[in-house]
């Protein structure tokens, strides 16, 4: 029996603003508990929300970047539930008229993207491991409470963990490019829940879905989804029902545990938030926001492919790392050879960045210096092997590529007199092979070339060597 997974994602993105969604407390991560709070975000009696203009714009930027339709009007709603992280006992969110409506991104349909406020942080104490179960009490810190949050919901268009991971990687890069969020999973500014269901391949009807909560890296999301698909498929294979549940994925054991089962549907009693008025972005404002967006990763990917003839994988990986792509484009322009530039950037240069932890434009190996090295290789003044040594030296030595090549003695022996002498030496040392060559074993050209290269310490230009050899061997 073959099974098909159906996956939809709910992504919460904390937006980059100076202040919170509905009050003007700083929106800042990592401050001492309960220092970025006020009567509004502590839900004191009589306090009223006032929506943050920049948060709305940030959300619109993301919506535009994800190809969403921006409705003429959106409104705010109250989502009612009691929990210590929710001081008003309702979250201001958007229910039936979200800021951003249906869109499409990398072929995955976006259902909606709506603005809401983040909850407070609750620390469970006295239970030993910080988990809820068995804790003695909870301490609430309201600093995060009210942080602008964009909830992005996709249609169930994804079919596997790896696909979800790729989608999320591109989504994150796109949101980061808009400037709307830093999308840092570790700080929780990007949080992903996945709804997973499994059905018989070819079936139209959806299976029972389970929700995977709060996975904190894309790798774990991929693995968690894969584990959940296996779990559900095994149940179905065994003829057992999948029960609707919220699950937690533990990457250490690669296993899932049930956080809660749905016995009763939630009843959030949504209704229009009477303390706020609708948002109606004007067409002119939307045009201005769209015009001010930088080139987004998917667009850049296409352009890198088209303009520089880069392979898909190279174009995608460059587009996902805008700094590196910028570096690449600068380098390609200076060197006049996109393929060579791409090889350097994806190879030696990336390895150097990984090792040094620096960002592309902070590297001592500037595009101009690296272009110089590429030119030397193109001229045949240094071999590609030698060039790697020159590159390594450039990192700590400000001298230019030519000077370093010289200093390291890596200059290619290109002039025919010097090379001719070496060729003559090699031929003189191998009379048997010379005879065999002349007798028709022309493949021995490789042997002679190797000997010459060796004798030159790798500095000989292989093309020049071969032409000299042919000349000397007469054929």
């Amino acid at each position: 029996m073959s099974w098909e997974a159906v996956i939809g994602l709910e992504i919460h993105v904390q937006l980059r603003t100076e202040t919170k969604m509905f009050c003007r407390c700083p929106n800042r991560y990592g401050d001492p508990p309960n220092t970025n709070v006020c009567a509004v975000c502590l839900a004191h009696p009589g306090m009223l929300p006032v929506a943050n203009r920049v948060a709305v714009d940030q959300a619109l930027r993301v919506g535009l970047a994800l190809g969403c339709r921006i409705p003429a009007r959106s409104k705010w709603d109250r989502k009612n539930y009691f929990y210590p992280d929710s001081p008003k006992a309702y979250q201001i969110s958007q229910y039936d008229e979200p800021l951003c409506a249906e869109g499409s991104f990398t072929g995955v349909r976006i259902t909606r993207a709506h603005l809401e406020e983040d909850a407070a942080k609750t620390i469970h104490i006295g239970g030993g491991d910080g988990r809820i179960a068995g804790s003695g009490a909870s301490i609430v810190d309201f600093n995060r409470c009210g942080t602008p949050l964009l909830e992005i919901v996709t249609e169930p268009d994804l079919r596997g963990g790896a696909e979800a991971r790729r989608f999320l990687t591109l989504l994150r890069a796109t949101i980061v490019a808009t400037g709307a969020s830093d999308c840092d999973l570790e700080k929780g500014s990007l949080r992903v829940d996945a709804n997973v269901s499994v059905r018989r391949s070819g079936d139209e009807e959806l299976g029972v879905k389970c929700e995977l909560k709060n996975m904190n890296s894309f790798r774990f999301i991929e693995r968690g989804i894969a584990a959940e698909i296996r779990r559900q498929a095994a149940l179905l294979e065994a003829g057992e029902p999948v029960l609707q549940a919220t699950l937690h994925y533990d990457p250490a054991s690669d296993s899932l545990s049930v956080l809660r089962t749905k016995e009763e549907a939630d009843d959030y009693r949504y209704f229009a938030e009477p303390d706020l008025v609708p948002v109606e972005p004007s067409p002119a404002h939307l045009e201005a926001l769209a015009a001010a967006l930088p080139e987004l990763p998917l667009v850049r990917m296409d352009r890198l492919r088209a303009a520089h003839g880069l392979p898909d994988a190279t174009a995608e990986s460059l587009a996902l790392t805008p700094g590196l792509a910028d570096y690449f484009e600068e380098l390609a322009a200076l060197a006049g050879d996109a393929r060579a530039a791409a090889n350097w950037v994806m190879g030696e240069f990336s390895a150097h960045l990984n090792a040094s932890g620096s960002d592309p434009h902070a590297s001592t190996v500037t595009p101009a210096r690296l272009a110089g090295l590429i030119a030397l290789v193109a001229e045949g003044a240094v071999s590609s092997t030698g060039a790697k040594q020159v590159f390594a030296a450039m990192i700590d030595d400000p001298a230019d590529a030519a000077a370093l090549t010289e200093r390291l003695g890596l200059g290619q022996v290109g002039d025919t007199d010097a090379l001719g002498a070496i060729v003559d030496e090699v031929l003189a040392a191998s009379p048997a092979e010379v005879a065999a060559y002349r007798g028709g074993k022309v493949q021995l050209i490789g042997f002679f070339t190797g000997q010459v290269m060796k004798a030159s310490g790798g500095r000989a230009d292989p093309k020049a060597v071969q032409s000299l050899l042919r000349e000397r061997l007469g054929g």
Partner: protein
Amino acid sequence: MAALSTIGLTAEGAAMLLDARAVSCVELAEAYLRRIDAVDGDLHAFLRTHPEETLARARALDEGGRSGIEGVPIGLKDLFSTRGIETTAGSRILEGFRPIIDADVVEACADAGLISLGKLNMDEFAMGSSTEHSAYGPTRNPWNQALVPGGSSGGSAAAVAAGLAPWSLGTDTGGSIRQPAAFCGIVGLKPTYGAVSRYGVVAFASSLDQVGPFALNVRDVALLLSIIARNDPRDSTNVGLPAPVELPEAEDLKGLRLAVPRDQLDAGVDAGVAALFEATVERCRALGAEVSETTLPHAGHGLAAYYLIAPSEASANLARYDGARYGLRVDAPDVHAMYSETRRAGFGAEVKRRIMIGTYALSAGYFDAYYGQAQRVRTLIRRDFAKAFEQYDALLLPTAPSVAFPFGAKLYDPLAMYANDVFTLPVNLAGLPGLSIPCGLADGLPVGFQIIGPAFSENRLLAIGHALERAIEFDPVPPRILEGRG
């Protein structure tokens, strides 16, 4: 100098005494504090006073110099957040709560140099029409202590009627300013929704709540409105008033087209109230107004719509009282039990009733039939008013169908209590301004006359109220007001 009597003293009158240096700010404040000491033990209009702060403010004004309205005392409904001063909204659940901010209206009063005398009693969370739902005991009606002062701003109305404050602020969600003003024989204005900031005003029903003034006459009401109606960026639904408040001078109603929505009176009006209402309508004609009859075909559904919308909004607004961050907490082994026990102990019966109704009306499967339908009725009521205002400058109705009633008369019959708001709550549903002025006595008790106008027509309402008030010559001082006129 003989001890200053505060009975019948208007805010404008008090300011004149200060201007003439007949009294200092401290002497004036002391006179009110003495009056409160003398009679509020019986009346229970104030939940608490803070004489030290009051006198310190008065002293500062005496020393720093004052002008205009500066130095005139005021009383504040306990629904307004007052920084560092306990604010309970008449509820146990907020006992001991000291706000860390001032409501915008409190700030506005302070900016204008008004001196707060203290916090006034009210129905718990403004839910009620008699002030019997205060967790701290009811307020009595200065006209007859066996009767309720109306509500929910009963303390605010009683204090002004009894000379405990020259004026006061209350809130009106379904009639909570106009009805107690009527029961206590004073003037009360519910401004257009959005005219006054709700920032720091403990919320009951956000789309209906509005702050407004109580005073002995219309000019004082206008003056206080001019102080509190201002733009506040902290309230997204606040727009202030489009034109400055004019102190009314009108002496007649010439050129005004008024109308009585006659169909509304079918709801039933006590005979004494009806007679005074008709007499006052006649007086409008005598003053030069053209008075017609009209209808508000959907306003009859207002009571039902109101008692779905207000509790629904309240059920969310009051969810924050959970024992976690402030106010009462009843300990329990887990947090949800703590919420339930705290709210069980902290809320009174009427509040619980309305939270139940609101929670039910919003819940899955019932939303459309109840809340959604109520909001559609609201649209129809707004249209009714809009249509009427195409032809008329203002509409006239009794403020309440009865005069003040005895304690306990409606306490155990919620529907009867709700029905007392029948003439006031359509105005809230439509977000309109409504002014109640006393128009005479029925069986020795004050009767309120309500003037309703289109949104932001406060100046017109105040002018009409002023002209009528001059003609009616109602004496707002209760006859047997405790120590009598002094």
